[in-house]
């Protein structure tokens, strides 16, 4: 396998102002405030895989997904797609590449123009990229609707006539119109009912097989991530903290934050729930403005030692194909429970 998308040290910082000469004139203590939403992420997305990206709100997972497509401008770093660095293309060159890189949004209500018919919405990318027109375009739109499980009779209807699940199908059809290689799915099932979530996950899985797609599946829903992904990357306050196969990351999480995250997932099985021991974290996720020093998780980590406040951990391959960022574990000593010295 080779990487379809290769992200190198990507950063997305949002400047909130403060700290300038004028600010200091009115408030001598004013400091520059920067949200480091994505702060040095390197990641390869292999051809035809589904890479799940999980984390809690504010961890930067959606920003990372958007920055890959440059829907949010990266501050620094590279995103290689077929030997081109998307992060440094001109707008014109970027537009040509966008044909191969698409996105599906969380809110199917907000992402479809209410004044366009379904046919216009799904057909618009065909026109934009001059892929088809007239009767041929109409034919393509009908095929696309059928591919995502919608009747071609819907072509003249408007978004408000559809349910959430159907609108998500329309969003998928629009993304498929240009026959992309890569799709960022940003929380594609979070707004949907349980019975509809399964429909959309199965649809996306089928399309991936049939059309050789590669997905970055961004979600906070760990059960869905476990189900759809080949590999999973976990994000915390702008950094990747663990990457591994979906089964490994659920059954054998190594980094403490991942452990807590996986143990917090409610399992739909009362017998499992009755005997489970949860690692319940204290406190909330700290603010991404001026995040904690060293390991960003040290403020909530039950195993943190003084060193964790100072040293920023790097991702290292602790077990084969299983990367984690924690200074207290190593290939020789992969389990933090056994790294007892200095812990509580």
């Amino acid at each position, binding site marked *: 396998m080779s990487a379809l998308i290769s992200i190198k040290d990507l950063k997305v910082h949002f400047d909130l102002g403060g700290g300038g000469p004028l600010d200091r004139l009115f408030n001598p203590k004013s400091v520059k405030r920067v949200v480091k939403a994505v702060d040095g992420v390197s990641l390869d997305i292999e051809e035809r895989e589904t890479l799940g990206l999980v984390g809690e709100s504010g961890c930067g997972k959606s920003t990372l997904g958007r920055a890959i497509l440059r829907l949010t401008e990266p501050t620094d770093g590279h995103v290689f797609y077929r030997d081109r660095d998307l992060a440094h293309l001109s707008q014109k060159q970027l537009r040509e590449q966008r044909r191969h890189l698409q996105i599906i949004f969380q809110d199917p209500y907000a992402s479809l123009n209410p004044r366009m018919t379904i046919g216009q919405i799904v057909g618009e990318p065909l026109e934009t990229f001059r892929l088809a027109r007239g009767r041929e375009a109409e034919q393509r739109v009908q095929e696309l609707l059928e591919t995502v499980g919608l009747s071609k009779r819907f072509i003249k209807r408007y978004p408000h006539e559809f*349910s959430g699940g159907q609108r998500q199908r329309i969003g998928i059809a629009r993304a498929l119109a240009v026959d992309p290689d890569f799709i960022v799915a940003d929380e594609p099932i979070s707004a949907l009912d*349980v019975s509809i979530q*399964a*429909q959309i996950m199965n649809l996306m*899985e089928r399309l991936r097989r049939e059309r050789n797609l590669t997905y970055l599946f961004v979600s906070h829903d760990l059960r869905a991530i476990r189900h759809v992904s080949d590999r999973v990357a976990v994000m915390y306050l702008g950094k990747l903290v663990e990457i591994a196969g979906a089964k490994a990351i659920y059954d054998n999480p190594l980094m403490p934050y991942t452990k807590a995250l996986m143990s917090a997932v*409610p399992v739909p*099985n009362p017998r*499992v729930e009755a005997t489970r021991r949860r690692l319940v974290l204290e406190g*909330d996720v700290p603010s991404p403005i001026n995040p904690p020093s060293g390991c960003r998780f040290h403020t909530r980590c039950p195993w943190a030692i003084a060193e964790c406040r100072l040293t920023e951990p790097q991702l290292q391959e602790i077990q084969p194909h299983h990367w984690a960022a924690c200074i207290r574990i190593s290939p020789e000593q992969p389990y933090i429970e056994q790294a007892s010295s200095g812990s509580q």
Partner: protein
Amino acid sequence: MTNLLEVKNLRTYFETDDGVVKAVDGISFDLKRGQTLGIVGESGSGKSVTNLSIIRLIPEPPGKIVSGEVVFNGNDLLLQSNEAIRKIRGRRIAMIFQDPMTSLNPFMKISKQLMEMTQLHLGHTKTQARAHAIRMLETVGIPDAHARADSYPHEFSGGMRQRVMIAMALSCEPELLIADEPTTALDVTIQAQILELIKKLKRETGTSVILITHDLGVVAGMTDHVIVMYAGKIFEQAPTNELFAKPGNPYTKGLLRSVPDPTAEQGKLYQIPGLPPDVAHLKPGCPFAPRCDRVEEICKQEFPPFVQLNADHHSLCHFAREVYSESGGTPA
């Protein structure tokens, strides 16, 4: 054990331009003291309207409780005066909603909002109420409660606000706590904190709980009994272990199979076809018939019976016994 709450044949309808929406249509259930009942369903199934009907918070018009009884401690709440209900609400039956920000007054200090509860219901003086408020904030795990009591809601995170809501709900030691999607808006590690907190407080105070949620994982970990709602009806009700192990209704069965279990092998997910029904335009017959994988002619013609499968296991289905047997149950 005695029943704290008995809901009998409750019907709550809404008048709309589109016709009468039978949001809750003839449901009955009991809640024993000290137990937790889960109500699961998809959007529009009537689970929240059931809860609002119990505490008489249905906006009228357009809504109306058309018939039924809600017997709480031997008294039918639907027959009480508004004034009598106000004394019960918050004092003996408390509620937590999904979004704590819309349930807290943004212009009022947290302490003041908590104090109002006990000043009103328990006749506390200002000093007593303040001491009690701070004690409650400590109970729900607000760090440095003394100092933070005088914050405003916007200064708290979502998880902290939900803790404040729980502190407020429990401050008069209610007999019944109704929690409507209490963790849906929260992150998963915060959800785990809040669920642990509700469990702990329930153990300590013996409060009965009705937990309304769409998340079958939350139901599995928190409840003793479960009610599954669909199109304003109870489709199945059973003890939690029994319902997950031996579902007796095709809808429940489909729902359970469509949720990925991270502890099991990941095969292809079962999917229930189609969409939840429009309750304003229900056809005769079973409301689930258009989506059911074992539908037969009778399902389209006749409304299904509520079949008793076991001592406290019921299912609304023409083929409830067959479905139950296929799940490994032995119908009584």
